[in-house]
C-alpha cells in the first residue's frame, strides 16, 4: 500500500462506512423489535456497499479492511463509538447520516456519492423519525435520548475538519448540518448541548488515525477471522 492511498480522502470515507456498518451489524439478534433488526441490518448493508466500492477504487478491499492496524484507519471517532442503548445508536445515526447526506450531495463528481446519497436519505429519515419518537416519547425514552445527544455531541466537531482532496465547502457543511440537526432536536423536545463539539485530547483526531478506546477491541473482533484464516471463503 502506498502512502498516496493512505492520504486519499476516499479512504477516510470508506473507513467511516465500514466501521459504522460493523457497529450496526452488532445489533443483529439484539434489536428491540424485529423491524428494527431488519432496518439496522439493511442500513449496515448499504454502508458496507459504500465501503467496498470505495476500497475497490483504492486497492484490494480485503487488505484495506482487514489487514490495516488501528492507527491506519481514518474514520471519524463518531462512527466507532459503542452502540450503547437504542437511543445512542439512533442519535449516532442522526448525526452521521445528516452529515453524510450533505457531504455526498456536494460530491457530484464521485460516482459512489451520487449513487449512495439516495440511500442515505432513507437512513437519515429513519434516524430522524426515531429521534422524534424517542425524544418526544415517554419520560424514560426522553431521558435516554438526551443522554445519547449529550454523550455523542463531542464527536461531531470532527465531521467538519476538511478532508484535503475533496471539493467541499466545509463551512456550508457545518452550518447546514447544525441547522438540520438542531431543528430535529428542537422538534424532539431535546436540548442541544452547549458544550464543545470536541472532547479532550483524543476527540477530533480519528482522521489522523487517533482513535478512542473502544475502537481497538472492535477492530480486533472485525479482523480476527480474516487474519486467522487468510483467504477463507464459504
Amino acid at each position: 500500500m502506498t502512502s498516496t492511498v493512505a492520504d486519499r480522502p476516499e479512504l477516510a470515507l470508506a473507513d467511516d462506512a465500514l466501521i459504522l456498518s460493523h457497529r450496526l451489524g452488532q445489533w443483529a439478534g439484539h434489536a428491540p423489535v424485529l423491524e428494527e433488526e431488519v432496518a439496522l441490518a439493511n442500513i449496515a448493508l448499504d454502508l458496507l456497499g459504500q465501503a467496498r466500492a470505495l476500497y475497490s477504487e483504492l486497492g484490494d478491499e480485503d487488505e484495506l479492511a482487514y489487514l490495516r492496524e488501528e492507527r491506519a484507519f481514518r474514520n471519524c471517532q463518531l462512527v466507532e463509538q459503542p452502540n450503547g442503548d437504542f437511543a445512542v445508536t439512533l442519535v449516532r445515526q442522526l448525526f452521521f447520516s445528516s452529515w453524510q447526506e450533505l457531504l455526498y450531495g456536494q460530491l457530484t463528481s464521485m460516482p459512489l456519492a451520487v449513487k449512495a446519497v439516495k440511500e442515505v436519505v432513507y437512513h437519515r429519515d429513519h434516524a430522524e423519525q426515531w429521534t422524534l419518537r424517542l425524544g418526544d416519547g415517554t419520560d424514560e425514552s426522553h431521558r435516554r435520548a438526551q443522554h445519547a445527544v449529550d454523550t455523542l455531541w463531542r464527536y461531531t466537531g470532527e465531521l467538519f475538519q476538511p478532508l484535503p482532496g475533496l471539493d467541499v465547502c466545509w463551512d456550508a457543511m457545518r452550518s447546514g448540518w447544525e441547522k438540520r440537526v438542531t431543528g430535529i432536536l428542537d422538534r424532539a423536545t431535546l436540548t442541544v448541548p452547549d458544550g464543545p463539539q470536541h472532547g479532550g485530547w483524543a476527540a477530533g483526531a480519528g482522521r489522523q488515525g487517533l482513535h478512542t478506546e473502544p475502537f481497538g477491541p472492535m477492530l480486533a473482533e472485525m479482523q480476527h477471522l480474516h487474519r486467522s484464516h487468510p483467504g477463507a471463503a464459504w
Partner: protein
Amino acid sequence: MAETRTQQAQQAQQAEQAQRTQQAERLGRLRELAGAVPDPELPFVSLAELGVLRDVREAGEGGVEVELTPTYTGCPAIESMATDVERVLREHGVPHVTVRTVLTPPWSTDDISAEGSRKLAEAGIAPPRATGTGPVTVGLGPTRTAGDGPEAHAGPAAETAGPEPEPVRCPLCGSAATTLLSRFSSTACKALRRCESCREPFDHFKEL
C-alpha cells in the same frame, strides 16, 4: 483495370457491411440472453425488466463485456447476477465474458420497465411510484406531548414537501389505505407496509 478496382472496393465494402450487420445481430441476441437472466431475489423479473443491464459489447476475440448496475450500492445480488450472466453467455458460445459493475448514472426505480412493475405487483410487491420527491416522511404515532398527536410532527418537512404523493396501493386488494410498518424490509430495496382494508402485510419496492 479501374473498373475492377472499383468492383473490388465495393465487394470489400459489402463484406464489411455484412460483417457489421452480423456482429450487431449477434450482440442483439446476446443482449437478449443476458437481459432474460432472472433476478436472484425476485426471480419473476428479468435483469432487463429491472433496468440493471446497461450494456453488452464486443471485447475482442469473440469475447463480450457486460455492464451491470446495482440497484442498491450494497446489494449482494449483483454478484450472483454477474455469475448468472457469465454462465448463460458462455453456454451460448461466448469464449470470454467480462462483467463490470458501473455506478454512473445511478440506478433509479424509474428504470424498472412497465412490464417489470406489473410482474412485481402480480407477485404481491407494490411497485415503486415515479420518483422525484425522495422518501415520503410519515409520522410515527402518539407522542409524549399531550394533545398534539402525530400531526404535530408533520412540521416543516411536510409543509415543504409539495403535493401529496399518490398512495401506495395494496397489491392484493388494491386499497389505498396502507400504513408504513418499516422503512426497511426483507431487502434494502423494499419497505414493509400493511393494508388497512384486508389487513395483509406486504412489501413495497421503495422509490430510489
